[in-house]
């Protein structure tokens, strides 16, 4: 695979001045006292983004994800290491960066295009697309300073994505504009993916990573916690958000120690251990799981030991709508604890279908538990889903839901094949009533049109 972005042992240190001395006088006055302190924004980050993939960069505030993106964009230089970007790069660090308020939309499109490194001919070629996409046809000859902030952002996004760079960097800018424009942006990003362009997306929204990304990494206080599978990334990211995460034995740096003590000298960080292995072998999975558990210490007494889906009854590889699906997990917990089990389903394109807990189902939690092995099974009778690939997340929480003990994020999945040409995702009982002018509608006459049911193979007749 071609590497589009290569990050090689990149570290970034910032000088932390108590108060940045801006004038010479201040510099001279503060010369004698060295208030300078180094702040490590990135520690030895090493990964690759392949051409054509959408790569998520997850991390909490201050984890260094924006610094990383700026290093890729080239606006700041790493203290150590090298970043290589193949192809034309366009960075959406801030929408409309470089717009001049006194210039018109048209003038700014050309100016911004050349700031991003594209030729005038190229911008001329796609000028209409840009204007079309932004939906600002009427205002293209208006000075940008008269634009609303939404219009400003729309024009900025339109320029950046329509220039069709080989590598696009996005820094949480998709959250601008109204819903319609957001949808357009997502569509555009999908178009990018379809064209085989490379995208790096910085966000702290796991949903967005799950919806859009092929692989992802997780940053925590400048350390790389994970590179690879998106589901794992989300799990690890959620853990890194837990305030207890760093109480175990210090900051993320302990992860490195944990790794090196595991004796594998060829993999200096856990990140490289899973790098380029989207599915994560059982070994590295368990290893990471163990590392994270080590970090959490005694605070994670409840852990999922196994999870499974009972396959279709007759040995098929996929379920049919209406089948019974059983999703189970076994877990360890201290004797006599009450645990809330939660099931969450997503479609492969990230739509959240359901999240339901033991309390929702039967008004009671699971337990009291026995010391060694407990099993909880979610039984879905009459599966109401149509064709697609579905992802399962299993979660164990404390009964008050103040704490999450453990989760298996989208490690299980199943397929549904109805064998019918259908559109949509959900099975619904939908009746069709037809009337002509002379008739009075009666519900009885309407054929039962539960959509994929094999009995409705004939096309329903619709009155004209």
């Amino acid at each position, binding site marked *: 695979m*071609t590497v589009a972005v290569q990050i090689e042992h990149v570290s970034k240190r910032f000088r932390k001045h108590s108060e940045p001395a801006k004038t010479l006088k201040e510099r001279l006055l503060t010369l004698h006292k060295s208030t300078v302190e180094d702040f490590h924004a990135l520690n030895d980050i090493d990964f690759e983004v392949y051409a054509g993939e959408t790569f998520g960069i997850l991390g909490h505030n201050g984890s260094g994800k924006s610094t990383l993106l*700026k290093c890729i964009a080239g606006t700041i230089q790493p203290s150590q290491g090298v970043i290589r*970007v193949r192809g034309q790069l366009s960075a959406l660090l801030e929408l409309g*960066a470089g717009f001049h308020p006194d210039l018109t939309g048209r003038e700014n499109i050309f100016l911004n295009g050349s700031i991003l490194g594209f030729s005038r001919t190229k911008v001329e070629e796609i000028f209409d697309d840009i204007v079309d996409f932004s939906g600002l046809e009427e205002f293209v000859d208006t000075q940008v300073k008269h634009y609303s902030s939404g219009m400003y952002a729309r024009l900025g996004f339109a320029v950046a994505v329509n220039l069709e760079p080989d590598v696009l960097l996005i820094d949480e800018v998709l959250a601008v504009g109204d819903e319609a424009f957001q949808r357009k942006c997502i569509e555009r990003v999908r178009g990018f993916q379809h064209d085989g362009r490379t995208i790096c997306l910085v966000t702290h929204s796991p949903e967005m990573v799950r919806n859009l990304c092929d692989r992802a990494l997780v940053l925590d206080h400048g350390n790389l916690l994970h590179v690879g599978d998106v589901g794992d990334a989300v799990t690890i990211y959620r853990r890194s958000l837990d305030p207890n995460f760093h109480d175990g034995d210090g900051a993320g740096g302990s992860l490195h120690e944990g790794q090196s003590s595991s004796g594998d000298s060829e993999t200096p960080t856990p990140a490289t251990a899973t790098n380029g292995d989207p599915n994560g072998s059982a070994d590295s999975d368990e290893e990471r799981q163990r590392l994270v558990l080590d970090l959490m210490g005694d605070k994670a007494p409840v852990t999922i030991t196994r999870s499974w889906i009972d396959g279709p009854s007759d040995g098929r590889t996929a379920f049919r709508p209406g089948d019974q699906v059983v999703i189970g997990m076994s877990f360890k917990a201290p004797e006599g604890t009450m645990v809330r089990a939660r099931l969450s389903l997503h479609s492969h394109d990230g739509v959240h279908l359901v999240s339901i807990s033991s309390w929702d189902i039967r008004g009671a939690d699971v337990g009291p538990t026995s010391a060694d092995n407990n099993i909880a099974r979610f039984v879905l009778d009459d599966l109401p889903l149509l064709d697609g690939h579905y992802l399962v997340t299993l979660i164990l929480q404390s009964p008050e839901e103040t704490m999450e003990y453990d989760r298996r994020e989208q490690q299980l999945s199943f397929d549904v094949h109805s064998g019918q040409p259908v559109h949509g995702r959900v099975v619904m009982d939908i009746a069709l009533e037809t009337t002509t002018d002379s008739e009075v509608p009666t519900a009885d006459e309407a054929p039962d049109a539960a959509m994929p049911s094999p009995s409705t193979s004939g096309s329903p007749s619709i009155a004209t």
Partner: protein
Amino acid sequence: MTAVNTVNAPDLPPLLENRAGPTRLATRLVNIWNYRELLGNLVRRELKVKYKNSMFGFLWTLMNPLLYLAVFSVVFTLFLRSGAPRYGLLLLSGLLAFNLFSNGVTAATTSITGNGALVQKVWFPREILPIAAIGGELVTFFFQIIILFFGLAIFGQSPEWTMLWLLIPTLAVTLLMALGAGLLLSGLNVHYRDVQHFLDLALLTWFWMTPVVYLFNLVGQPFIDRWGVGAERWAMLNPMTPIVVIFQRVIYNPTNFSPEKQQETFSLMLQPTSWYLENLAISAAFGFFLLFTGLKVFGQLERNLGEVL
């Protein structure tokens, strides 16, 4: 960041490299060349924005030298009685050259701090900003020079046509110096905002040390009195002096006037072409030194511009 064409993968687009440490000078120059279109657009932006919301727009650029021409002609022929005939034309000949330098350096110095948002968000060769600032001043300069030539025509005065080519190397040296100083100061100004205030004073001093308002004879004569004929050369060690004097010699052209007047007022300005070239060469050497220093210092400072801004 560095743009490198990879040898082993010729079909792939260029590889951008962002590594720790300063970027090689040659690579930076290549980058600037690759972004020349942006340079053009930024110059265009500077000019557009300058007069965007004004009714007369670009006419204001021309008003400035016209006003100088009128006011100084009146003041110096009626009240101050300068020895130079049509003093306005003489003043403007030198002033436009000096203004190109001083306005260029001033614009370049604030070009990076003024485009902070851009520098923090998008990468492009940072040198483009000061270069574009000077480019904008150069365009203004050309328009003003046109006004000056109109002024010459109105007074029935002609430039020294045979020496007109001398303006090209002179202009080049002016730009060289402005660029060197601009690069040096624009980078420094990000770290110490004192630079732009200091610059105002420095340029003001420099202006009055250069024979723009007064005649070169006034500067040269004391040297001759002391060390004899030929010592006026020392007065040329101010790198702006040869530039201003060449502009005055070629455009204002003292040979328009009677031989007596020439001897009386402009004797030291009437030198052979080689004399101008020799002195210009010294300015050029200074310019190259400035440019080299500017590029070096800028290369060091450029690395963390995005953070310090």
